[in-house]
Structure formats: structure tokens, C-alpha cells
């Protein structure tokens, strides 16, 4: 089983890399959406607690 360490390394690397990139993209998406949300809330006219459907 010499040389099988490479396969182990590849598997661990692939897993961590994919999870890290997914996490990064999720964080980016969330941050962008939250910025947009803040901007929209700022535009909201007088009634500040206008429709806010949190859980549907």
C-alpha cells in the first residue's frame, strides 16, 4: 500500500477545500443580501415596522 498516502491527502484536501469554498460563497452571499436589506430598510417610508415576514 505504498503511495496510497497521496490518495488520502487528495481526499482530505478536496473535502476541506470544497467545504471552505462553499462556506466562503455562503458568507459572501449572506453579507451581500444583508447589505441590500439594510439599504432597503433605510428607504422604507415612515411606517418602520412595515411587512416583515420572518417565518413566512
Amino acid at each position, binding site marked *: *500500500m505504498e*503511495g*496510497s*498516502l497521496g*490518495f*488520502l491527502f*487528495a*481526499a*482530505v484536501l*478536496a*473535502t476541506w477545500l*470544497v*467545504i471552505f469554498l*462553499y*462556506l466562503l460563497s*455562503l*458568507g459572501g*452571499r*449572506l*453579507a451581500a*443580501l*444583508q447589505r*441590500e*436589506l439594510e439599504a*432597503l*430598510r433605510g*428607504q*422604507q*417610508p415612515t411606517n418602520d415596522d*412595515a*411587512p*416583515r*415576514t*420572518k*417565518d*413566512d
Partner: protein
Amino acid sequence: MKIGPLAVATLAAMAAALYAALLYAPTERVQGDVQRIFYIHVPMAWNAYLAFFVVFVCSVVYLWRRGLWWDSLARASAEVGLVFTTLVLITGSLWARPIWGTWWSWDARLTTSLILWFIYVGYLLLRGSVADERRAARYAAVVGIVGFVDVPIIHQSVVWWRALHPEPVVLAPGGPAMPPSMLLSLAVSIVAFTLLYVWLVRLRLQTELARTEIRELRRALAEATA
């Protein structure tokens, strides 16, 4: 993205799992170091099935109660489950190459995982190709239910398909009993990846809820200006 207690716990557990898999667990005698892939492969497979089970439950609840929150959770879980399934297929191949001498074998479990991958790719693409969000949620729920119900049928059919066609490669189940240190490493990894699943789904759910809120605010804004 805030670093909350869940994030800290997940990162700590993942670090512990990495240590357990690569250093703490004893080297398997027959397969050697490559067997350590087991400690990331199995927990991810387990969590992928958990993710699709969550999709199934949320789909049923959505059709019953019609809360968009359930639909958002189903979508989040499907996406995370698909990421895990992808990694399960990749790590499985990387294990199979040195052990079986082939990247892929049309064995029941591998084939079912691959079909599962296709079902949830279709599920997510379907969501993207329906404009109306309520209708998209309804369709997705139906696919989420039928797809999950179909999984055991697919698995069984592939088992029988193979059973009449014996393969030269015998897929030995890991051995009758694992030493306690291996079992402990596996347990740590399962906890770590389950925490990771919960964390990822929560993040994904937050983006989905933020998107819903933006849509509602836009609608309210358009009505106010009209």
C-alpha cells in the same frame, strides 16, 4: 457572517476530527493509511442522507402547513446535502482506486449515491426554473417527497440488478469489529460533520430568509410609491 458559538464548536470539532482521522486512529493493517478516508467519507454520507431526509420532512410539512420557512429549510438542506454527496462520491473514488484498483464500480451503494446526486441536482435546478415562488415551493416539495421515497426502491433494484451479475470485486464490509480507537475516531468525525451540516444549513437558511425579506420589502416599497 457572524462567528457564533455554533461556528466555534463546529470548527473545533472539525479540527478534532481531522486529528482523530489522520493521527489518533491506528493504521488499518490490510488497507494501510488510505483507510483513513473512511473517517471523512462515512460521516459525510451519513449527513447527506440526513440532509435529504430533512428535505423530505420539510416538503411534507410545507404541503401540509404552507409556511415558506419550511420550504426555505428544505432548499437549504438540499443544497448542503448535494455538496456532501459530491464529496462522498469524490472521496469514495479516491479510496476505491488504491483498494479496488478502480475509480468506480457499479455497486449498489455507489450507484444509489450517484442517482441521488442526480435527483437533487434536478431538484435544485427545478427551483431555479420556476418564477413564482409559491409554485416553485410546491413543485420542489413534490420532487423532494417522490425523490426520497424512490431512494430505497432504487437501492433495492440496483442490489438485485447486481445480485444476478456477480462482480469479481467483493466489497468486504469493514470487518466484523472495529477496535475502540477507530470507533472513537469515527464518532468524533460524525459529531463534527453533523455540526458542520447544521451550521451550513443555518447559514444557507439565513440567506434564503434574507432573500424572502428583501422581496417583501421591495413589494411593500413598490406599493407605497404607487
